[in-house]
């Protein structure tokens, strides 16, 4: 049981495009020009940045994880003249806040460390509120999809997990379509994708990968998928069948973890959650394990972005923070990256090794979301869910 998410949800209902409530008056144009060209400091050397950044003195970072506190300490040790002010703010709240601040012409952050990729790309980057900066040092080692349109430093997951206490010989689910069969009726748990964006991204990806889903259907049942009326593809049909098979929707990820992971259950459910939550197994008494061999894929990976806030008063220090968040040149990223070096999360840099205790990204074989393509069909998928 848990209630963290309750506050989360209740409170921060995560607004997004809040340009909205523009106080009845005409909304003012964002104070800054839309996605203009590269910033003058984008080509500056590290030493030039440090010199300017010390003059700027402070840099404010919005971060979707509290681990920014450790980053703050490390950053200030590395750059004694610069005060990093880190604020722990959820992604959806950051989006609302950055939009409202841009609209009011009072940006109060310099750097945004943020997930919720489809909305960030379509609302913040396209709207010119966040700008991209790729430190030259890492330009070679970060694959292009994590350099453009915004730099990412690591990937997180939403994948199928099972209870390894009850299934010591590996995953009981070899094919996602099994979840639509009687055996798993009422025993699949996930957060309601109608309430939480990252789960909507997961469902959207399943629809986007309809061909793979169709193939997996053929593998398991030896027959082609038969589409119901109003269903356009195999992905949608899977979602529809999953819902019809008593899929249990809850409000929060921890609810999924506790339901799937709690030890001592005779017949525990399976559910979609974060691979990295395995690190809480011992502390919480769970037996969560990733369902690795599930075809066509156990779930999705998605990026954690580093964005430069347009109109920031500390452009040099912001760029130093981005550089810092990418980790040092060692295999583990060093002290700078340490807070993010968690099994089940994956650094994007090709010259870093993934943390011990979780399988490699290749072995995980999760689908990596494409934020722009996801954003295109996300609303349609959300509408489809509303008809179920």
């Amino acid at each position, binding site marked *: 049981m848990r209630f963290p998410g309750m*506050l989360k*949800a209740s409170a921060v*209902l995560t607004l997004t495009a809040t340009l909205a409530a523009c106080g009845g008056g005409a909304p003012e144009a964002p104070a800054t020009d839309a996605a203009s060209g590269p910033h003058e400091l984008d080509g500056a050397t590290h030493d030039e940045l440090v010199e300017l950044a010390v003059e700027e003195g402070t840099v404010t970072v919005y971060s979707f994880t509290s681990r920014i506190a450790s980053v703050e300490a490390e950053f200030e040790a590395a750059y004694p003249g610069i005060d990093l002010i880190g604020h722990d703010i959820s992604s959806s709240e950051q989006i609302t806040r950055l939009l409202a*601040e841009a609209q009011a012409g009072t940006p109060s952050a310099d750097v945004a460390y943020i997930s919720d990729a489809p909305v960030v790309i379509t609302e913040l980057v396209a709207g010119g509120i966040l700008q991209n900066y790729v430190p030259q040092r890492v330009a070679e080692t970060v694959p292009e999809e994590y350099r453009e349109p915004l730099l990412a430093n690591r990937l997180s997951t939403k994948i199928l997990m099972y209870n390894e206490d009850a299934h010591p010989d590996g995953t009981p689910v070899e094919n996602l379509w099994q979840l639509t069969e009687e055996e798993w009726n009422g025993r699949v748990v996930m957060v309601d994708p109608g309430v*939480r964006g990252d789960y909507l991204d997961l469902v959207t990806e399943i629809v986007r990968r309809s061909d793979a889903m169709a193939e997996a259907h053929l593998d398991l049942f030896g027959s082609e998928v038969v589409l119901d009326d109003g269903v356009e593809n195999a992905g949608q049909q899977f979602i529809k069948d999953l819902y019809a098979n008593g899929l249990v929707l809850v409000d929060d990820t921890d609810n999924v973890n506790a339901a799937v*992971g709690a030890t001592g*259950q005779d017949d525990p459910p399976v559910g979609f959650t974060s691979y990295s939550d395995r690190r809480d197994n011992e502390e919480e008494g769970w037996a969560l394990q990733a369902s690795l061999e599930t075809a066509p894929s156990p779930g999705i990976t998605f990026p954690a972005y580093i964005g430069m806030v347009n109109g920031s008063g500390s452009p040099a220090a912001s760029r130093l923070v981005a550089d810092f968040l990418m980790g040092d040149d060692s295999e583990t990223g060093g002290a700078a990256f340490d807070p993010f070096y968690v099994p089940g999360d994956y650094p994007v840099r090709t010259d870093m090794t993934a943390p011990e205790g979780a399988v490699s990204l290749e072995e995980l074989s999760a689908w990596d979301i494409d934020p722009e393509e996801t954003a295109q069909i996300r609303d349609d998928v959300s509408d489809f869910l509303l008809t179920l």
Partner: protein
Amino acid sequence: MTTAPAPRRTTVGRTAARVRTTLRQPTVVLGAGTLLVLAVLVVAPLAGLVNTTLMDGNREAWTDVFASPMSENLLWRPMSNSVLLGTATAVGSTVIGGFLAWVVVMTRIPGRGVLGLLATIPFALPSFALALAWESVFRNDLIGGSTGILVNLGIGVPDWLAWGPVPIAATLTAHYFSLSFMLIAAALASVNGDLMEAAELTGASTLRVARDIALPVVAPAVVSGALLAFAEGVSNFVTPALLGLPVRFHTLSTRLYGAISTGDVSRGYVLSIVLILVAAMIMYASTRITGGRRSFATITGKGGRRRGIELGVWGRPVAAAAWVLVTFTTVVPGLVLVLSSLTRRTNDFASGLTLHYWIGDSDPALAQGQRGILNNPQILQATWNTVLLGVTVAVCAGVLGLLVSYVITRSNGPRWLPGTLGVVSFVPFLIPGIALGAAFIAQFGAPIGPLPSLYGTFAILVLAGVAATIPFSVRSGTSALSQVSRDVEESAVLAGAGLFRRIGAVIAPLTARGLFTGGVLVFVQMVRDLSLVVLLATPAMPVLAVLTYQYSSENFTQSANAVTVVIAVISVSATILARRFEGAAQPWNSNS
């Protein structure tokens, strides 16, 4: 309307004359003034909401909601669920709150002072504490994971009792009956003892006295309480999400929050406009039903002392019922909350208890090295900010609320004025807090003429707080004011007192009890509410609710719960202090 139309010139002349007369009435001027303030605080943000849904590219949100294959799941079913929950919460809260208010104020049951205090606490507890308390008893194996006490004892719990409308309505009622209790108790306390004694002397039974004397007198408070409970019932998100989603039970609020959090803001706003309209209709209907009844002025300046009702053989059962009610709505959820801040593993009461999350030093093995909350200087700063904010908003909203409710109850100017004020002052309740917060940033975030940007200041928190809590202060002000007889005020007029003098020197002291009640409601609401302040409170100015949110979103559940306990303690202390204070302010009610 059926008379022959008068010549045009005369009509205009008459209208002009009427305007001149009207303008000379101070209540009209006051009404216009307060309406202007409310226009800035309430109407403008609301217009912003509507405006957004009408912008290019957002308009299809209306057809999506009202006329698409999704309408059934997005609008109609959630709407009927919301109305059902709101009604159940209003009825349940009125019955329970009214019963407890009667026990505490009118009877001589031992320990009624403590009862009265405990009955105000559920409102100060977070909704999830009550939902969690329900789950810890009734949770069945639908989701998986751990089960509640009953199932563990081998007693099967059907889904309808563990999930869906029944548990949601029950927990919402347990949460919001405090509102009805506080308002009705304040009204009952001002019932004229002479009337009751007169009735008893004529041989009326206790029940008859309650029904024929007390009930009509407290009617405005009952209606106010029911309306607040209704509005809270339809707008609460936490409880339906926790107890409803597993059986796919959606309400307008879960759909609204879902739409907004998955990035479809305009659809969310359309739903919130629907929510506002539905509640406005219910409110209109209820005032039509009760509006025909003259309100009963009970504070006449001649009041007598009351004595408690003797219950005879009914004493024990009534006392037992009252104690059971407060035990299950206050003591049990309170204990659940405190214990869950002490558990070593999240909400696992068998995992052992620890004070680490309260007073521990940083330990990397627990909660990623977060210190115990009492060991954290940020908490102290946030506590101070929170209390200051609560008090400031309570005072400002109290003054504005008193003025608005004075116009509503006393205006003899144009008929539409009190009605408009009543509706406008109720609306903020139904605007999702975060939308209101965003609207305030948009409205006051940029400099307006010579006024500087208020973004990140304490002032913007106060302004938004007043806007968000004005329904509380107006409702409690109205129910308190409608009990003050006009003859009291007329004597003041004869003595030459002007409008503001009368409000300050006569009305305010006489309605102190009701106003304090409203003030406490506002304070508690501000201290515990997160959705409004989450955007407005910049990280440089932390408040407790935001810290709870941060802890919980990082899954530091115990720390989050510990901060929640601090919030509850502040709220409860405020309630206790206010009761002492109001006792001193109204010596003629000291026997209550």
